[in-house]
């Protein structure tokens, strides 16, 4: 029982058995969160640095909690209070961190490929917590875990990802992961925010929301990333809300078993109305709870074993 890789860089190409292994472990870890003492000694003596070059609340807190619940020693690093400001290169930062004998690096960076680069230039285990518009594997794994809790089996489940697909690493990781699990994935959004390569990914592409959600089992609503909308790809936020915003009105003709996911933070009243976000279809808070359990599973599976001391 072992993951086929040393790092968690992305879900593209990750074998089904690795995903299953992580999800199965997450079930056990979820139980720990219900215990009176929510902590196990497994990662005692392991040091983990959370290297965040981009803002984050949920993902960082979730990773930090997961690390602490496993008794790892955690160091937080955020780019705007660090020596990066003094012009240190990424490689030097990583090398220096490594020189302090850190075993696991959880990294988020605005540039695509940074986790891959770190995996090559350090000996530490790298966990990708989001690289640019490329991947956010732990998010997709917790989404898949949440869907599995609800539906048991993901085969032929119809998942529609709605919003700014172009800039979304969450969408990409979910597409890879969900397809590996056998789900049928579609994307829906304004055509300027739908990358051309989507058809090659083997997903259905919609620009009409009503058609996209008609027989959907899951609506995965992406956050409209305001910080990436200055390039004129959207005429106006109001138009976006009118055409792609999910509200109660829109959900009149959907399957009764429909569920709604959102990676957070929500722009309430834009991509999702408050009524729906807090309503019966929403699994958004389950996603957050499950995030800690899934990240514990990832850390457990990647953090153990030590080639030098195992004598193999």
């Amino acid at each position, binding site marked *: 029982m072992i993951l086929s890789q040393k790092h968690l860089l992305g879900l593209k190409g990750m074998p089904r058995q690795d995903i299953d292994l992580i999800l199965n472990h997450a079930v056990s870890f979820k139980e720990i969160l219900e215990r009176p003492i929510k902590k196990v000694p*497994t990662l005692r003596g392991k040091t983990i640095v959370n290297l965040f070059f981009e803002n984050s609340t949920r993902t960082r807190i979730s990773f930090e909690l997961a690390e602490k619940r496993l008794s790892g020693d955690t160091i937080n690093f955020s780019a705007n209070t660090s020596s990066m400001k003094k012009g240190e290169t990424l490689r030097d930062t990583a090398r220096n961190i490594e020189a302090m004998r850190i075993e696991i690096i959880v990294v988020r960076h605005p540039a695509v490929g940074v986790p891959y680069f770190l995996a090559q230039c350090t000996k530490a285990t790298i966990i990708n917590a989001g690289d640019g518009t490329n991947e956010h594997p732990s998010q997709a794994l917790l989404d898949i875990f949440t869907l599995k809790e609800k539906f048991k089996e993901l085969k032929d489940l119809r998942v529609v990802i709605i919003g700014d697909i172009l800039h979304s690493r969450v969408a990409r990781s979910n597409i890879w992961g969900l397809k590996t699990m056998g789900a049928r994935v579609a994307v829906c959004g304004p055509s300027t925010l739908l990358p051309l390569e989507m058809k090659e990914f083997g997903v259905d592409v919609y620009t009409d929301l009503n058609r996209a959600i008609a027989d959907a089992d899951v609506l995965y609503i992406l956050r409209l990333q305001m910080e990436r909308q200055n390039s004129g790809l959207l005429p106006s936020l109001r138009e976006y809300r009118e055409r792609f915003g999910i509200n109660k009105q829109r959900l009149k003709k959907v399957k009764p078993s429909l569920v709604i996911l959102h990676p957070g933070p929500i722009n309430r009243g834009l991509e999702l109305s408050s009524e729906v976000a807090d309503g019966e279809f929403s699994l958004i808070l389950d996603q957050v709870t499950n995030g800690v359990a899934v990240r514990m599973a990832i850390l457990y599976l990647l953090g*153990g074993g*030590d080639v030098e001391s195992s004598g193999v």
Partner: protein
Amino acid sequence: MDEKAMERTLSRMAHEMVERNKDIEHLVIIGMQTRGVKLAQRIVQKVLEIEKRPIPFGILDITLYRDDYRAKLKQPQVQVTDIPFAIDHTNIILVDDVLYTGRTVRAALDELMDFGRPQSIQLAVLIDRGHRELPIKADYVGSEVTTSQNEEISVKVKEIDGEDRVDLVELETTK
């Protein structure tokens, strides 16, 4: 040990437990994953038959408390822990199939302490095969077996393996 012998042994152990814990009011039984759970369930059933009173039953998985996590390239599969009651002030009987080095029991004791403060913990094992590495002793022993370190005790239970059997098997030496 065959099916009949295992049945008799578990019955005897259940009687010993009842005798020793006169008042079973605070008695709970916790089985250790994987085969200890099945043995514990049978003991719970037998205690019910003797005392006509059900006793609480829980499941413990000690994987996350093991002391060899760092040394292994392969992590053992983490299984479910399910203790659906508060263990404060209870008298726990911990059930496992084989007692060997005592390391598993050490892990179980540490884990149980994180769940609360039991009044006492007793240990019941089907087979005690010796070679202890820690100062740990069982309170209820099904059978003591003298073994050498290149042998292994194989415990099979109906619920998992389709039959009740205990065998002493010689390990193939890999070196």
